[in-house]
C-alpha cells in the first residue's frame, strides 16, 4: 500500500532548481533511505513531502496519513521555557502515562521535568524521536536524525528504528550520511542529486555507476563518504542502473 507518492515533483528556490522531476513513493512497512551529496535536495524532498515547501507536480497521500517528523536540527529560543514532558505533548496532548512510557522506551525515563535546552545532543535526538512516534505515525520521516551521535549511539538509534517498524508497522523514510549503516538498515536506497540518480536495493545501488560517480567505489560505501566527487555531472544518460534489472533507471536530467 502506497502511503505517499510524488509524480514529477520539482522544487525551485529563487530561480534555482533544487529538485527536478522526482517520482517517489513509499509503501507501508518499508525503510527507504535518501543518500546524496550536500545540496542534493534530500532535506528539500522531505520538506516537500510534509508540505513545508511549495512544489510543482503532484503529491498524493494515503487518506488519513499520519506523519512523524524528526527534523535535522531544532533550535529552541532561549526565551521559550520547555520541559521534555511539555514538548512531548505538542501539538497533541498525551496522558502523563503515555509520555512516561514513550520516554522509558527511548531510554530516557528521568527527564520529564528537564528543560529541552539542557539536554545533551543524544538525549535531544531521542526525545525528538520519542515525540514523533507518540502519535503512532504511518510514516516516520527522519532528516539526518543521528547527527551528533557517536557510533554506538547511532547504531542503537537505527536498531530502535527497526524495532519501531515492527511495533508500529510504519514506513520509515530517512536521510543519512552514514552509508555503511544505511546499506544494512534499508530496504531501498534512493540516490539523489537534484534528481533521482538511481534507486533500488542497497547492494545494487552501491554498485550502480551513478552512485559510484558520487560516492566513489568504496565497497558498500563505507569509505565512500570521504571520497566524494562533487563534479558528478549528470551526463550518464542511458547507461548504468538500467543494466541491472533490480535497479530502476530514473534519470530525467541527462
Amino acid at each position: 500500500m502506497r502511503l505517499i507518492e510524488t509524480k514529477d515533483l520539482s522544487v525551485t528556490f529563487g530561480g534555482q532548481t533544487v529538485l527536478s522531476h522526482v517520482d517517489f513513493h513509499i509503501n507501508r512497512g518499508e525503510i527507504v533511505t535518501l543518500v546524496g551529496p550536500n545540496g542534493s535536495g534530500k532535506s528539500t524532498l522531505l520538506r516537500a513531502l510534509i508540505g513545508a515547501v511549495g512544489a510543482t507536480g503532484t503529491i498524493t497521500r494515503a487518506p488519513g496519513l499520519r506523519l512523524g517528523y524528526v527534523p535535522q536540527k531544532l533550535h529552541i529560543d532561549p526565551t521559550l521555557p520547555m520541559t521534555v514532558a511539555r514538548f512531548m505533548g505538542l501539538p497533541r496532548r498525551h496522558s502523563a502515562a503515555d509520555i512516561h512510557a514513550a520516554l522509558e522506551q527511548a531510554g530516557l525515563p528521568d527527564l520529564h521535568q528537564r528543560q529541552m535546552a539542557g539536554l545533551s545532543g543524544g538525549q535531544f535526538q531521542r526525545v525528538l524521536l520519542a515525540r514523533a512516534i507518540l502519535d503512532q505515525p504511518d510514516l516516520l520521516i527522519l532528516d539526518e536524525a543521528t547527527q551528533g551521535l557517536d557510533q554506538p549511539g547511532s547504531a542503537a538509534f537505527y536498531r530502535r528504528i527497526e524495532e519501531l517498524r515492527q511495533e508500529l508497522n510504519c514506513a520509515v523514510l530517512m536521510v543519512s550520511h552514514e552509508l555503511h549503516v544505511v546499506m544494512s538498515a534499508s530496504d531501498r536506497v534512493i540516490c539523489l542529486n537534484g534528481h533521482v540518480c538511481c534507486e533500488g536495493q542497497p547492494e545494487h545501488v552501491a554498485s550502480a555507476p551513478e552512485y559510484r560517480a558520487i560516492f566513489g567505489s568504496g565497497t558498500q560505501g563505507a569509505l565512500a563518504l570521504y571520497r566524494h566527487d562533487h563534479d558528478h555531472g549528470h551526463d550518464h544518460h542511458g547507461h548504468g542502473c538500467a543494466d541491472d534489472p533490480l535497479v530502476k533507471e530514473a534519470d530525467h536530467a541527462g
Partner: protein
Amino acid sequence: MLDDFMVRAVLAGLGVALAAAPLGCFVVWRRMAYFGDATAHASILGVALALGFGISVFAGALVVALLMGLVVSTLAGRGYAMDTLLGVLAHSALAFGLVAVSFLSGVRIDLMAYLFGDILAVSAGDLAVIWGGAALVLAGLAWRWQALLTTTLNPDLAYASGIDPRREQLVLTLALALVVAVAIKVVGVLLIVALLIIPAAAARPLAHTPERMALMAATIGAMSAVGGLWVSLMLDTPTGPSIVCVAAICFAVMNLGHAVVRQG
C-alpha cells in the same frame, strides 16, 4: 461603582494587561518585538483617519493596525532583512500618522492622549470595548494554543502535524491588532509594545513551561497596571509611563533575583 474614574482606570488597565501578557509571550518567543512596534505605530494613522472621517477611534486603529500586520507578514522574507523592513514600516507609519493628524484642523485633539494614553479618561463604553477585545484575544489564543506553540517551536514540525504556520501567524497578527486597538486608551501607541514584552520577559526566569510563563506574565502585567496607577496617583506622574516603569522594575527585580539565586 463604574462611576468612579479610578475604578474604571483599574479595570481598563487589568483588561489590557491580561490580554497583552500571553500574546506578549509569543511576541518574545517569536522575536516579533519590532513587528509589534510596526503594528502599534501604524495605529496612530488609524486614529487620524478615524477622527477625519468621524468614525470610532477603536475601529480606525484596529483596521490600520491589522493592515500593517498583514503587509508585514506578506513582505516578510522578500528582499529586505526583516528588521530593516520593519524599521522602515514602523517609523513611516508613525510619521504619516503624525502628519495626518496635523491636517485635522477642524478637530481639536490631544495628540499626547493617543501617544501616551489617557487611562483616567476611560469611559464605561471604552471599558466594554477593552474587555470585549481582551476576551476575544484570550479566547483566540486559548483556541489555537497548541498549534501556536508548535509553530513557534518549529514551522516544519507544525507542517508535519497538519498545522499551517501561516494561518497561526495570521491569528497572532489579528490578536496583536486587537490588543493595540484596545490599549491605545490605556498606554498609548508608543508604549503598547512595552506592555507586551516587559511582563513576558520578567516572567521568563520564573517559568519552566510556556503556560506558566504566560500565567506569570499576566500576573506581573496586572500588578504593573495597578501599581502604576497607584504610583501615578501618589506622585502625580503620567499614568501610562508609570505602568511601564513598574513593569520594568519587576523585570529588573526578577532577573536580578534569579541571578542571585542561581549564584547562591
